[in-house]
Structure formats: structure tokens, C-alpha cells
């Protein structure tokens, strides 16, 4: 029997997340490279429907791992369910998307099995017989190839956007779906989660904005935000920010761009003093043009910028405001 790669997909609010499909794409690539069998699993209560949806893809089998105790999500129940499943369905490689939910339970699951997870990977390489998983380090300034030195199962999580959801291969015929009921004893689940909610209504919707001027910690002080505002006004655009700016209360939360804020896709995203951490980038990389001003030539934001200015934003922005005004005035 060949080794197995298991992709554990994530569903929330009745939908499989896009990064789940991305992870299946990663699994299909790994399966092609290793010759291992690719299977998928959905974990929850009443998830057979999702399993059916996944089964349309090129996979050998799809499992619905079921227990009423899996709804609502808790790390205790998810770790227990997958540990039980993996003891009866051994896998060599277990892949999951690096979502908030997965990072909440996968370290527990791996530890409970005496294993480890290589987290937040952006790709993999095959070096002879060895699999290397690539992850960003030092906030994206460096990358590392990491290997497992432990026994299987090997747990890997993939970063949002690492693979393309639209590249998932469909299967020639639907993969068989099997429901596996797991037993989660009373007392295993210790946390009592309440309803998921959204903080006070968002007053600003940046998702439709055409031009966004975004400030990061390079702006240094709250009062300096004014020059970014002037630039945004001159361009006829909206002001946005990285998370630390909103955390400090310098701009309201609804102007935060990134994984815990808004996802935008303007024509122009002008980033001032933003380093380009992945949690920020996922919120703005869809912009048609990205211009970044940063004093650090090695800032990861330059990795995704179309136009880059290495320099002090306080030197660049004032003349830029003037030039934009001139251009708008048609002189």
C-alpha cells in the first residue's frame, strides 16, 4: 500500500474556505511528485455535504469525520477527533491551511501524537527522497527550507495564497466518500465558545476604493498621519493603515488592511512606511499597482511592489503632494 497524503479542509459558515482549495492544489502537486495517494477530510458535525463537494476533485477518497461534539469548533474536540482518525487511518503527510482555526489546534494535535507541524509554508521542494518545506522567517525577510526529523505523520500548514485555488484538478469521477464517526468522551472539551460576532458596524468600506494611501509604523507619530491624508486627498483616494496604527488608535479599526482587517483591490495602493508582513499583504496584494515607500531597501513590501522608492517618507511625500496637485491642476 502506498503512503497517504491527507488534506484536512476547513469549512466555516456553510462554505469551504478558499485556502482549503489552495491546500488541495498543494496536495495534488505533492501527490504527483511523490506518487503517494491523496485523500481529503472534512471535520465537523453534519459535514457530508462538504465532503461531497470536495469529492469532485482529483482525490482517491474523502472522509467526513463526524461527531456532534465537533460543533461549535473547539481545539479539544478537533485535536481528539483527528488523533483518533489518524490512528485508524495512518497518513504520511497531513496538510492543512494556515488559518486561525488550524493554528489553534494543530500544535495540540501534533504534540498529542509526539509529532511536529511545519507551519505557515509557502511551498515545498523535493530533494532526492527528502521533502523540504519552505517557510518565511524574520517577517518575510528570509526564507528557510525545513525538513522533518521525526516519524510520520508529518503535519504541514500552508499560507494563504501559497497555491492557487483555481488550479485544483477535478477528478475523472467523484471520489468515494466515507463517514467516520469519532467518539469524543464527556469532559474532553473544556472550552465553551460563544457566538462568532463582528465588532461595531464598519463605517468605512474600502473594498470599493480605487486609490488607497496606506500608512504604517514608519509614520512614527499620530500627528504625521496628516501628510498621508493630504496625499490621499490630493489623489482623490482613501486613507488606510497597517494594524499597529489602528491598534494605537491613530486611525479607526475600519481602516485596517490585512488578514484581521479589510481585503482591498484598488487600482493603486500606495504604502508609506509599511514593512510588508504577510498578514498585511494578504489584504492588499490584489491591488492593480502597488507603490511602496520605505527607508529599508530590504523591506518585504518591495517584493510585491511595482514601483519602489527607498527613502525617508517625510522627504518624499511633501514634494509628491505638490507634484500631484500640479498634475491635477493641469500645469
Amino acid at each position, binding site marked *: 500500500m502506498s503512503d497517504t497524503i491527507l488534506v484536512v479542509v476547513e469549512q466555516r459558515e456553510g462554505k469551504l474556505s478558499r485556502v482549503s482549495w489552495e491546500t488541495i492544489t498543494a496536495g495534488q502537486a505533492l501527490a504527483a511528485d511523490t506518487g503517494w495517494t491523496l485523500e481529503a477530510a472534512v471535520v465537523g458535525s453534519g459535514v457530508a455535504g462538504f465532503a461531497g463537494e470536495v469529492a469532485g476533485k482529483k482525490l482517491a477518497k474523502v472522509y467526513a469525520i463526524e461527531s456532534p461534539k465537533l460543533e461549535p469548533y473547539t481545539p479539544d474536540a478537533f485535536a481528539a477527533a483527528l488523533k483518533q482518525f489518524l490512528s485508524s487511518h495512518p497518513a504520511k503527510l497531513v496538510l492543512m491551511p494556515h488559518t486561525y482555526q488550524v493554528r489553534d489546534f494543530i500544535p495540540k494535535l501534533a504534540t498529542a501524537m509526539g509529532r511536529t*507541524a511545519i507551519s505557515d509554508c509557502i511551498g515545498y521542494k523535493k530533494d532526492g527522497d527528502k521533502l523540504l518545506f519552505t517557510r518565511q522567517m524574520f517577517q518575510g525577510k528570509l526564507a528557510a527550507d525545513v525538513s522533518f526529523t521525526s516519524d510520520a505523520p508529518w503535519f504541514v500548514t500552508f499560507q494563504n495564497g501559497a497555491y492557487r485555488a483555481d488550479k485544483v484538478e477535478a477528478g475523472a469521477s467523484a471520489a468515494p466518500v466515507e463517514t467516520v464517526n469519532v467518539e469524543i468522551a464527556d469532559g474532553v472539551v473544556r472550552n465553551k465558545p460563544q457566538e462568532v460576532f463582528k465588532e461595531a458596524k464598519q463605517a468605512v468600506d474600502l473594498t470599493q476604493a480605487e486609490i488607497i494611501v496606506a500608512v504604517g509604523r514608519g509614520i512614527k507619530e499620530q500627528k504625521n498621519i496628516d501628510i498621508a491624508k493630504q496625499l490621499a486627498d490630493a489623489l482623490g483616494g482613501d486613507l488606510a493603515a497597517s494594524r499597529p496604527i489602528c491598534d494605537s488608535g491613530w486611525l479607526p479599526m475600519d481602516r485596517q488592511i490585512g488578514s484581521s482587517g479589510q481585503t482591498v483591490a484598488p487600482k493603486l495602493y500606495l504604502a508609506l512606511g509599511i514593512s510588508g508582513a504577510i498578514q498585511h499583504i494578504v489584504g492588499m496584494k490584489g491591488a492593480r499597482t502597488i507603490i511602496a515607500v520605505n527607508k529599508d531597501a530590504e523591506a518585504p513590501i518591495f517584493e510585491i511592489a511595482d514601483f519602489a522608492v527607498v527613502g525617508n517618507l517625510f522627504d518624499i511625500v511633501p514634494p509628491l503632494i505638490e507634484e500631484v496637485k500640479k498634475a491635477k491642476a493641469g500645469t
Partner: protein
Amino acid sequence: MKILVCMKQVPQKDAPLKLNESGTWIREDVSYEVNEPDAFALEESLRQKEKHGGEVVVITSGPARAQQVLREALAKGADRAIHLEDNAFVGLDAFNTARAFAAAIKDEQFDLIFTGLQSDDYGYAQTGVVLAELLGWPHATIIMHIEKNDAGIRVKRELEAGYFQYVDMPLPAVLTIQSGINKLRYATLIGIKQAKNKPLRKVTLAEVQSAIGANLQKIERLYVPQKTKNTEFLEGPPAEVAKKLVDKLRNEVRVL
């Protein structure tokens, strides 16, 4: 409440990084600072102590330089510190780091352990949850608010895209703290003075050696990532750069 806060020393955010000879880590001759979310975790522990009484203990593992984060924490109000001091500690993966912490605190009784949600260098985002599992405690991650109640605590978890969720859980528990949960305080002069007399327990590698094992993962190679996008760098004095940018905005980006 008796709270343990795990605080890691990491290279400063804007430190220029150079690879070490074996290409497995960076050269050590950089400036260091406390891992950002860990500073918020410390602040939260101090606030909880101010509300409910108890004790705040800070712990780090790393070489002698790492003591700096403990000193700063003591100056801000932590009561005592534990330093797992050895160069070898930094070479441990998160599983072993957590095992070393568990061994170092085996005679203590904490109600809560706080870690940052992830480190700014390796960014593994697992140490806290691994520690919880090793101790057999419940955990919750990416925490933005903590309130004690009769049954235990109610915490506010951050979820993706602006969603949140409250979770009720019993004590003892491990929480991983998100940056921005509170506003950081500065150390006072008095605090800095008092810190000198606060207890700092050193733990050697030998003391916890039996609790740790071989690493479960290995960094084969560290490198500067290859650029995938064609970035055009605009150079010159600011006034000239401003003109070039406007030219791009007008003729290529077409927003002017």
C-alpha cells in the same frame, strides 16, 4: 492570580540580517528586542494582577543576552524571573522549548500562562499551544481580552477578517496574546531600581536535559527569498522621485 509570561528575545525589527556560516540562522551580531506580542502579554499580566492580586513571573530561554528582556519586565512590575540560560536553548524547536519550560516550572502552580501569539523571527506560532498540551491544560489563541469570573475566565478570541468570539474556559489555562490587546506602559525609574533586587532564577541546560529530546524538525537552509515580481526602483533626490512617481501615476497607473 499567579501568571507566567513567556518572553522571547528576537532581533530588532529593522536590524540588517546576515546569514551565518552554515546558512542555518542569522549571525548573532545584531541588536535584540523583546518579541512584540510578548510585551503585550506582560502588560496584560500586570493589569490582571492589579485587578485580582497574585504574582507575575516572567520566563525566557536563550543565552546571557536574553536576560535583558527579563530585566525590562521586572522593571515594569513583574515579581520574579526565570532564565533558562544556555546558547543551546535557541537551537531547540518549539516542542523542545515548551518541554524545557514545562520542566523548569514543574514545582510551581500557575493559574495562567501567557505567550505571544507568535515570534517575530521563526514565527512558528505554536510554543504556547504545545506547552498547554504538555501540561494537559486548555488553551485559547490570539486573545484580545481577558476577564476573570467565578468559573474561570472569559476570553475574546480574534478570528479572521474582523470577526471575534468569546470563549469561557476553566483555569489553569494557556493563552496566546495578540499585539494591541492593551496599551503598553513604560518602566519607571523606581521600577528599574527595584528590578535589581527582584529574584531571577537561572536554570541550566543540565537541569532540564532529561525533559527534552532530539528536534523534530530541521532548518536545512536559510536564504534571501528570490524576487518574483519585476519591481522598478525610482531613484534620485526627493523632488525628482516625486516627479517620476507622478509620471508613473499619470502614464502607467493612469489615476491622474
